């Protein structure tokens, strides 16, 4: 223990900058892991809790299998109540509406890959029985009376406050084509059921709701409370299966929390990105530790040699280095965990924005913090294993040699051999992707780690070759000092290799981020331009009827209007497995006049495909679903309709990222006859060639906005906002690239400082024989520039290779097949950034070298 205190802690104290830099790597990695795990868990917990708390005591929920928005007959309630294990079954009617004087949002509220139009959600409930299931925390007034036909409502306190509604007053709500009055009798907390629809929620008597909104005899959901003995475990599962059998295929019996599936599914892909981020952050951290320890071993060769001479065994030396790493990991993890918890707050807020949903408060979650800490320590120790073994190999004789004499290690001479093997194997593994789906991400990260290690092993041999190649250019650029600087690169090969490695990782991370985001943005742009066609996008908080479509068409300056409608359907896979996807219904005739689909396979005749779609029993499939399921044009896909499972022929595969790409496009006719849906979610409007789009927008606003509660956006503005949202979502990755470059920056500063210190006497001699201070600066800068160019070029090659592999892997994992985009500008920029970073990092050490006094320098030992 004393030895650790003396050797380890003193060593850490003696080189604060280097150790702080290494600890920074671990802080970064642990903070990211802790933040991301806490955020992921908070988000999942919030979604689950939301549906659990809104369902109160209910253990099961019955909903229609086709997710139809027009509900099902009340009579089903009786069949549920007849089950002997069911204690209580309460009906719920969902009524989306808007206040007549509710301020219509001026622009469409975008969430991640979808739109949310706000509005007020009312639940029609059985006032007597519903309170036995759900707890409404009343804050003012009273709850709904026992009479189910009264036109009264209990609203959430926050919604009432936002819209300036007082207790006892009447509110005007839109019901179909008319306006109805409801009396506010109570205000409830935005808690439990009050959290629904982001708090814009209220409850009213069932009978009144059915009458007001033309839904007589219909309900949308039954919440079921089972007897205490069956409330959990296999007994509950049995009741669920019994009820499912009793109600048949038209209905599904689910657990309350599973209703959040779509939201959690949406989080899924984003979380893959976040996990990727935490993996990379940890890798960068590990590399910093590896780099610092390797340099430390080189620098302390003499010290380790001495320790070996006076009797320290190899295992003792190795243990010494590993304990240093462990302590560093411990410190880094501690700070990282604290930062991680703070970061989780910010991330949770960002995710809440993307989901358009309030998330639970972030709390310190002990197990995740401990997990992050353990990972930090393990990574720190693992990263130090190779340097530790190198330290253990130092012979006592090296203590007796003159300072700076270094042996060329086997890794420097022959490392390229295992490097090539590692690189080839990891590339093959990434392309073939033989890993099971659930471990793909973790296994993939490990493989990427190995490929980086393989690349790093190739560096020494590449540095030698590139130095020879670039020597004359550097000499021309930096003069005679450049030649000296260039030659210096070969002197401390291990150190040079590590620095170039740090830069390579930095540049390749930057290139990967650029390639991924540019490719994704490129494809997204292509899709959006096709998808949000025409000039204006018109939507509303309420379903849009055919009458609005016709009225819009007759307005002056309007060339064409086409409706789109989104609703959830169940996709029955060939394996029998079911998945919720989006059905996007279009009217092929008007659609082709306003915009067009982006086909991913060569379509000989677009008109034929559209005609097939108009003919019915046909869908277009998104490229992501095609990739994931292996389905192609000409195959069939099974969807659950109101009349049971039905097969649709796939006429084409199209680019569509709506709902994370889980979408099929079908015709308006099929929507009506198989899914019994009506009304549009939005209209796309094309202005006449001679008309100004903004003038048409004004025209629509004047004619219909107030009456139909329309929200109108110009497509240009919409695209701009989507792009803004994308930029926000990808900005985290830019931060990652920046951090990677910082690693390169610190690496170069570290190396050049060490080189300069080590050559103090030599620099003194050069000054002695007449080298000017400026020449010394140029010599040091030339050495750094060469490292910059080599690191930049290697990083570029490696980055392009890895980003291409990542894209292939992503296609297999999530179905996204992107067109690779990496402009020439980016390629040049990568190398320029690497050189600029190298020059900036070498500036201070070069001045330090130039400042040294000749006499001090030549007497330096």
């Amino acid at each position, binding site marked *: 223990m*004393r*030895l650790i205190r*003396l*050797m380890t802690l*003193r*060593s850490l*104290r*003696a080189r604060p900058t280097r150790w702080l830099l290494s600890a920074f790597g671990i802080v970064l990695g642990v903070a990211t892991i802790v933040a991301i795990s806490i955020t992921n868990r908070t988000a999942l917990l919030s979604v689950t809790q939301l549906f659990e708390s809104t369902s109160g005591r209910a253990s099961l929920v019955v909903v229609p299998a086709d997710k139809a928005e027009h509900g099902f007959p009340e009579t089903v309630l009786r069949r549920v109540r007849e089950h002997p294990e069911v204690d209580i079954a309460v009906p719920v009617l969902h009524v989306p509406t808007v206040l007549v004087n509710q301020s219509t949002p001026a622009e469409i509220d975008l969430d991640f890959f979808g739109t949310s139009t706000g509005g007020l959600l009312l639940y029609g409930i059985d006032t007597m029985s519903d309170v036995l299931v759900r707890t409404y925390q009343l804050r003012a007034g009273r709850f709904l009376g026992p009479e189910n036909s009264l036109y009264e409502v209990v609203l959430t306190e926050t919604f009432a406050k936002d819209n300036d509604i007082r207790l006892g007053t009447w509110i005007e709500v839109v019901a179909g084509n008319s306006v109805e009055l409801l009396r506010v009798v109570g205000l409830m907390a935005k808690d439990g059921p009050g959290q629904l629809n982001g708090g814009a929620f209220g409850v009213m008597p069932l009978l009144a709701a059915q009458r007001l909104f033309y839904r007589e005899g219909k309900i949308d959901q039954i919440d079921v409370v089972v007897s205490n003995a069956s409330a959990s475990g296999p007994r509950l599962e049995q009741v669920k299966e019994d009820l499912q059998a009793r109600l048949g295929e038209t209905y599904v019996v689910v657990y309350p929390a599973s209703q959040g599936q779509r939201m959690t599914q949406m989080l899924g892909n984003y979380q893959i990105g976040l996990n990727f981020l935490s993996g990379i952050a940890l890798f960068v951290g590990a590399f910093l530790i590896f780099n610092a320890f390797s340099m430390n071993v080189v620098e302390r060769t*003499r*010290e380790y040699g*001495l*320790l*070996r*001479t*006076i*009797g*320290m*065994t*190899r*295992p*003792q030396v190795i243990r010494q280095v590993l304990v240093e790493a462990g302590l560093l990991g411990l410190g880094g993890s501690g700070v990282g965990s604290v930062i991680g918890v703070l970061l989780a707050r910010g991330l949770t807020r960002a995710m809440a924005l993307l989901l358009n949903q309030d998330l639970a408060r972030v709390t310190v979650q002990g197990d995740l913090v401990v997990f992050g800490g353990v990972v930090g320590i393990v990574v720190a120790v693992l990263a130090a294993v190779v340097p530790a073994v190198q330290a253990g190999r130092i*012979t*006592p*004789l090296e*203590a*007796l040699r003159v300072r700076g004499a270094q042996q060329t290690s086997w890794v420097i001479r022959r490392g390229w051999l295992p490097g090539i093997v590692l690189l080839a194997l990891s590339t093959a593994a990434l392309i073939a992707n033989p890993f099971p789906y659930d471990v793909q991400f973790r296994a993939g990260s490990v493989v990427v780690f190995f490929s980086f290690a393989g690349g790093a092993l190739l560096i020494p041999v590449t540095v030698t070759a590139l130095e020879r190649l670039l020597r004359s250019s550097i000499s021309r650029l930096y003069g005679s000092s450049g030649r000296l600087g260039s030659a210096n690169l070969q002197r401390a090969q291990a150190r040079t290799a590590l620095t170039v490695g740090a830069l390579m990782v930095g540049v390749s991370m930057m290139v990967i981020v650029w390639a991924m985001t540019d490719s994704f943005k490129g494809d997204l742009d292509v899709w959006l331009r096709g998808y949000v066609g025409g000039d204006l996008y018109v939507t509303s908080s309420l379903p849009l009827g055919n009458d609005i479509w016709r009225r819009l068409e007759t307005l002056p300056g309007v060339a064409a209007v086409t409706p789109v409608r989104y609703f959830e359907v169940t996709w029955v896979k060939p394996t029998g497995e079911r998945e919720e996807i989006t059905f996007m219904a279009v009217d092929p005739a008007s659609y082709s006049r306003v915009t067009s689909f982006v086909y991913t396979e060569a379509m000989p005749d677009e008109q034929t495909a559209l005609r097939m779609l108009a003919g019915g029993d046909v869908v277009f499939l998104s490229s992501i679903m095609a990739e994931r399921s292996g389905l192609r044009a000409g195959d069939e896909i099974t969807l659950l309709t109101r009349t049971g499972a039905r097969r649709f022929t796939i006429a084409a595969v199209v680019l569509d990222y709506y709902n994370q790409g889980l979408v099929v496009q079908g015709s308006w006719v099929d929507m009506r006859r198989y899914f019994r849906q009506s009304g549009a979610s939005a209209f796309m409007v094309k202005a006449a060639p001679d008309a100004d789009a903004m003038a048409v927008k004004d025209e629509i606003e004047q004619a219909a906005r107030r009456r139909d509660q329309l929200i109108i956006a110009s497509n240009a503005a919409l695209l701009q906002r989507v792009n803004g949202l994308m930029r926000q979502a990808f900005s985290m990755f830019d931060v990652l690239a920046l951090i990677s470059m910082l690693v390169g920056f610190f690496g170069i500063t570290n190396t050049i400082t060490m080189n300069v210190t080590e050559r103090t006497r030599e620099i003194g001699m050069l000054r002695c024989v007449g080298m000017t201070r400026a020449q010394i600066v140029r010599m040091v800068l030339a050495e750094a520039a060469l490292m910059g160019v080599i690191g930049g070029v290697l990083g570029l090659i490696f980055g392009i290779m890895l980003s291409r592999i990542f894209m292939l892997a992503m296609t297999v994992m999530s179905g996204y097949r992107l067109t690779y985009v990496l402009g020439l500008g980016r390629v040049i920029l990568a190398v320029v950034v690497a050189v600029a970073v190298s020059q900036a990092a070498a500036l201070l050490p070069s001045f330090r070298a130039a400042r040294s006094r000749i006499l001090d320098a030549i007497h330096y*030992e």
Partner: protein
Amino acid sequence: MQVLAARALAKEYRMGQRSVTALAGVDFTVERGEFVAIMGPSGSGKSTLLHLIGGLDKPSAGDVTLAGQELAGLDDTAVTLLRRRNIGFVFQFYNLLPTLTAEENICLPLLIDGKDLRPYQERLSQLLHLVGLEDRRHHRPEQLSGGEQQRVALVRALITEPAILLADEPTGNLDSKTGLVIMELLRRLCDALTQTIVLVTHDPRTASYANRVVFLRDGRIAHELHIAPEVPLQQNLRSIVAMMQALETEADLVDADTGMPAPDLD
């Protein structure tokens, strides 16, 4: 009692295609309490001999027995333990850890051995008193002069009561006055503690403190000079210098590679 015995010790180094003989069959023994100086010109193999007897390097042929143990039969860990407990080293460049105080540097071999430091406190004080560093024990190397640093290195080498102390040019980095102080110290240690010392040097003044001077030339022992304890240092020095001159003259007459008399060019 014999502390060290080297038999037919040889060492060859490969330098590219060429092999260089550093030691060519040296037989060498040291008795307990002896103070032996190894002398010779650069490249004579004196440092190589010290490395081999200290277990820092492996011989190409021959063997070394130190404190009753044959080095050839020991693995790396066993040699390390032997070094830790039976050999003390002093180098030209002190080799102190800059982050530790004088006392901590001295106790390092004990700490590495996992020893409780308390029983060694008396020896530590005694040694510090002997080298005159009692008031400098809590200073770091950068706060000490070269001579003081070398004295700390000396105490570090002695703290484990080693069977033998090996010193490689211990005065090489010091001015002549400080160098003499260090040599006085070594002499005193040898007498007071019956400490066996083997020292490598090219300086006859340093060698004059020894009981026996071994002259190496071209990897072989060329001559040995035994000095009686009562002989004054000045007389020792004269004998050593005379021997060095004689050996140099002889070397001029003999071709180093063939061992044959050099051709007369006149």
